[in-house]
Structure formats: C-alpha cells, structure tokens
C-alpha cells in the first residue's frame, strides 16, 4: 500500500471512529479531553495543509559558518588584507557578479543562484553578539537575543499558526530535539533514523502499546512531557517509516544528505507537516585551524545536498510548495588567525532557496574597513527580519505581535 493511501485510510478510520463515538454518545470518552481531539487531529492538520500548501524547511549549519569564505567579496581589497593566507583568490571562485564569488566547492548553490532560486541575505546578526556557540545558537533558536525564551521560535510559530496542535505539524530530524522547535502546545516529531522509528512488538502486545495515555490529570511535569512524547511517537512512527520505505529517489545527494531526503519522503507521503527542522550536526563548521580544505568540503556537502533537495522536490512535483532557509549561529572573525583558520565572529550571510524565491542579494553589505568590536562584521540586518520574511512572505501567516520579540519588516523575496 502506498503511504498516501495509508494516510487516507488512517484518516478515514479515525474520522469514522470519531463520528461513531459521537453518534453513540460514549460517556466515558466525553470525560477525557484528549481522546476525541486525538481522532480529529490528523484530519484538521490535513485540511489546514491543503488550504495553504506552503512548507518551510530550516537547515542549521552548526559551528559558525565562515560567511566571508562562503560568499566571498572578492571585489573588496580589504577582504584580502584581512586574510592574506586563507583569502580565496578570484581565479578560484565561482563568480556571481562583479563583487561576489561563491566558494569553489559550491557547484550546487552556484547553479541555484544562477537559476534565480537562491537569495543571499548579507550581514545578518544582532546587537551585542555572543561568541559562544551555545549562547548564540540559543538566541537564534529562540529569536530572543540577549534574553531568554522557554520555547523556540519555530515551536512558537507552530503554536501561533495552529493553536489546536494537530499531530505531525512540526518535524525535527535529529538525535535530540532542537530548542528551536520546542513548543508550548505542539509535540514535535523528533526522529533520526526512519527505519528505526518503529515500536517493535509481538502481536499480543500491540493493543496495549497503542493505548493513548491520558495526560489530562497528570501533574508531574516530567511525566506529562514523556506522555506527550509517547503520543507523538504513536501518531508519527508508522507514517514516517512507511514514507521512508516507499521513498526511492534517483537523485544524488552526495556524501552527506543532511537528512533532506527524509524531508522529501515525508512531503511525498502527504504528511501534514508545515515546519521541518534539520541540521548539519556536531558543530561541523567550527573551522579554527587549517580551514580552507575542510571548509570547502563542508560547503560542497551542503551545496550538494541542497541542490539535490530542490531537484528531488521537482521530481515529486512539490518544488513550488517548499522554501528552505539556511543559517548558522554566527559568522567568523574577519581577520584570519595564526593557525590558518578563523575564530568566532558575528554577522553572517543567510540563504533562502526555493523555486518561488526571487533570487539575488538582500540586505546591506557590512563594511570590511569599519569593523565592529573585536574585528567583527557589524550586522546590517536583524536575523529576525529573515524569520519574519519566512513567516509572512512565505507561509503567509500574520503572526501574533511579539512572536519574534520585535517588529521586523519582511523582505519582498517571493514571486
């Protein structure tokens, strides 16, 4: 059975169960706030996804990508003065225009830029930048620089877009849940390997394991959280596993696919997910020493995976429904260090990729001669302006004021 059918069948079954119970007026369930809504959830989510089919995928490059050696301002002599050893010569670059060239490893993204499907937003950052991976990433995850938020911005966005918290609305492919997707109402589907995202059980045990725990009267918060996790696992695992086993793509994602094929498999299977979150894991971009070879390879892997993702979406006919936003927790210091690498910096370029994206450069260029404190790039665009662009410009959502802890003017980025 194809997953799409599986999904529809599940819908039908749940719909019948819901209606059936309503018709019979089963009193026991009326007392539980959870059970009836459970049956309606998938149906609601499918309906809302159909109303506006737009999907947002976020790719995090962990470790602090060196934006200056990613989108290289070869037209500015100051770049070469700051980086006499690791500065990339114009002859090596993939030239975009008379000022910028992409790192030579980025064949895939060069293609997307030249096809007009990639936006580069320059100088993204925030005031009083933190140079700690952990702290700065938390600021980006929560959209609350130099303050705190209990929930992530993607989680809060899900709460704002769908307060009824339908199942499978938010997916995070990861070994552990990102703060970005932490949500008050939603339980994100978090898994790493789809083929292992399955409850193995004997026939006799199945009914007992599919039992939905009643969270209603649990006051131990850890226990309540675990019951929510269990509910999400019940809701999602069969669909995810089925989607993955049906997925068979001829597209070459290269050496590190960054979990993007898993996203395509779920989109193709008709999951009602609106928000996906994946990452280049393990602080990979933290290039303090001898960075040029390794940085180029990291960019090649990223660029391969992203270009393949777009081709794969075209293959399944869903390219127009998806936009991908790429960010890192900070850029790197403008001058190179003595180990032929770069240290933690501040402002950085962000990327938005998709067939509906109006490609090109966005935001003002940060100055390479008038550096901010600590020899860093001063930011010219608050990173939350790009978040706002994705929320309003792409998803078409009129977000509650305060979702991003400030008011930000979206870029006109989508055709």
């Amino acid at each position, binding site marked *: 059975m194809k997953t799409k059918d599986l999904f529809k069948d599940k819908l039908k079954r749940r719909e019948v169960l819901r209606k059936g119970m309503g018709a019979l007026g089963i009193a026991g369930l009326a007392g539980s706030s959870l059970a009836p809504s459970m049956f309606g959830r998938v149906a609601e989510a499918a309906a809302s996804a159909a109303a506006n089919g737009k999907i947002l995928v976020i790719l995090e490059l*962990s*470790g602090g990508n060196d934006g200056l050696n990613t989108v290289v301002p070869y037209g500015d002599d100051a770049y070469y003065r700051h980086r006499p050893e690791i500065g990339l010569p114009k002859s090596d670059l993939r030239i975009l225009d008379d000022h910028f060239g992409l790192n030579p*490893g980025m*064949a*895939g993204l060069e293609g997307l830029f030249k096809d007009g499907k990639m936006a580069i937003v320059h100088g993204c950052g925030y005031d009083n930048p933190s140079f700690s*991976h*952990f702290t700065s990433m938390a600021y980006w995850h929560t959209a609350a620089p130099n303050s705190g938020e209990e929930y992530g911005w993607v989680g809060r966005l899900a709460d704002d877009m769908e307060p009824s918290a339908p199942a499978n609305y938010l997916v*995070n492919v*990861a*070994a*552990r*849940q*990102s*703060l970005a997707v932490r949500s008050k109402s939603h*339980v994100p*589907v*978090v*898994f*790493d*390997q789809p083929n*292992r*995202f*399955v*409850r*193995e*059980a*004997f026939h*006799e*045990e199945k009914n*007992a*394991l599919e*039992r939905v*725990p*009643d969270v209603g009267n*649990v006051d*131990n918060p*850890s*226990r309540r959280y*675990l*019951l929510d*996790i*269990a509910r*999400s*696992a019940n809701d*999602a*695992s069969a669909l995810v596993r089925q989607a993955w086993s049906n997925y068979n*793509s*001829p*597209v*070459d*994602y*290269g*050496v590190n696919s960054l979990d993007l094929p898993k996203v395509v498999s779920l989109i193709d299977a008709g999951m009602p997910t609106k928000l996906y979150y994946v990452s280049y894991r393990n*602080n990979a971009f*933290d290039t303090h020493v001898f960075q040029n070879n390794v940085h180029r390879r990291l960019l*090649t*892997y990223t*660029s*391969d995976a992203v270009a393949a993702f777009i*081709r794969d979406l075209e293959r399944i006919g869903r390219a127009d429904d998806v936009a991908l936003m790429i960010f890192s927790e900070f850029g790197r210091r403008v001058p190179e260090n003595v180990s032929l690498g770069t240290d933690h910096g501040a402002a950085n370029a962000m990327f938005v990729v998709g067939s509906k994206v109006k490609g090109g450069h966005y935001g003002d260029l940060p100055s390479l001669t008038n550096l901010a404190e600590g020899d860093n790039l001063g930011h010219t665009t608050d990173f939350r302006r790009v978040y706002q662009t994705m929320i309003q410009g792409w998803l078409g959502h009129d977000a509650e004021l305060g979702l991003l802890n400030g008011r930000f003017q979206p870029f006109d980025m989508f055709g």
Partner: protein
Amino acid sequence: MAGWAGGRSWITPGLLLERGNFARDVLFPDINFIPSDRRNGSREIQSVARRIREGLDITSATQPSSIGEGQIMAESNMLADRDEDFNTRYGSFRGWQMAIERVKPIPRHTARLNLSKMVMDQQLTNTAEVIDYFIARFMRVAPGTDARSMLIDFLSNEIGTTNIVEAESYMEDSLRMTLHLLLSQPEYQLS
C-alpha cells in the same frame, strides 16, 4: 565547543521507541541479529564488493551505485573520483576486507533471565501482586492506574488465570512480554 543542551531535549519520540525496542531485545533476543563487526552495513561498500567479485574492473566497480540514470552526480562524489590521491570507494572496500580478517568478534551473550523464579521467590500469588512487584522493582515513577490495570489484565489474559502458582510452569514468556510492556511505559524513562 557547544555543551550539553540540558533540559528535556535528550528524550525524543524516536529515542523512546528505540529504548523500548532495546528492552524487547534483552527479553527476547533476536535470532536473526547479525553483528556489525562481522558484516558491513553500507550498501555502497556491499555493492563495490559484489561488482569486484563479479569480475568488473576497479573503475566500473567503484562507480556510485545509487545515482539514477541521467541524473547529475553530486560534486562531492565527483571529487572522490577526480581529486583524491586514491579511489576512496575502493579504499573503503579494501579496508573492510582487511578488517574482517583481523577483527576478533566481540563475544555476545543473551541475558540470563528467569522471571518465573523471580516472582515465585517473592512468594507472590496473583497477577496483581506481580505487576505491583515489577512496578516497585523497575520503576521510580509509577505509571498511572490505567496502565497498571492494563498490565494486570494483559498478564491474566496471557496465562489464562490470575493465580500465578497454577501458571508457574508456562508463564515465563508471558512475564517477559508483560515486563516489556512495563518498560515501554513512558514513565520508565524517569527511572
């Protein structure tokens, strides 16, 4: 380096299922299990090995196998062919071939469990007492009363009686399934 994220991010829906599956593997060892130190799990390396044994030359045998007809090859895969001092796909195959000759298999034993003896030694008499004993022994935070009733019903139904003394000779598998259900309760993660 980034540190421990803290909070509750450690437990995910994916991990919850894997942990339950681990409990099942301990209670019911999988006879089809193939240790990863005896068999390479990468389809790419398997495919190179197969093609070399079929008599293909190294260049043909090490072409990436996953790329569809007429598809663009990823830059990183092209680099592996073009820029490296040696062919990394052949290198991986050879590495595995050499490792399999040298690596001593890790000795693996199944858990020696006797849950029937465990409950009889406690002088328990009925299924409710078994569940309460298991909860006390294995759980720090007890599951809800609905889960407790479910487990009692499950065990009683499996052994066909509430009297475990009568069922002593044949209840081992049922006890193991019951324990698997208990260890699959979300609350077990708080133990």
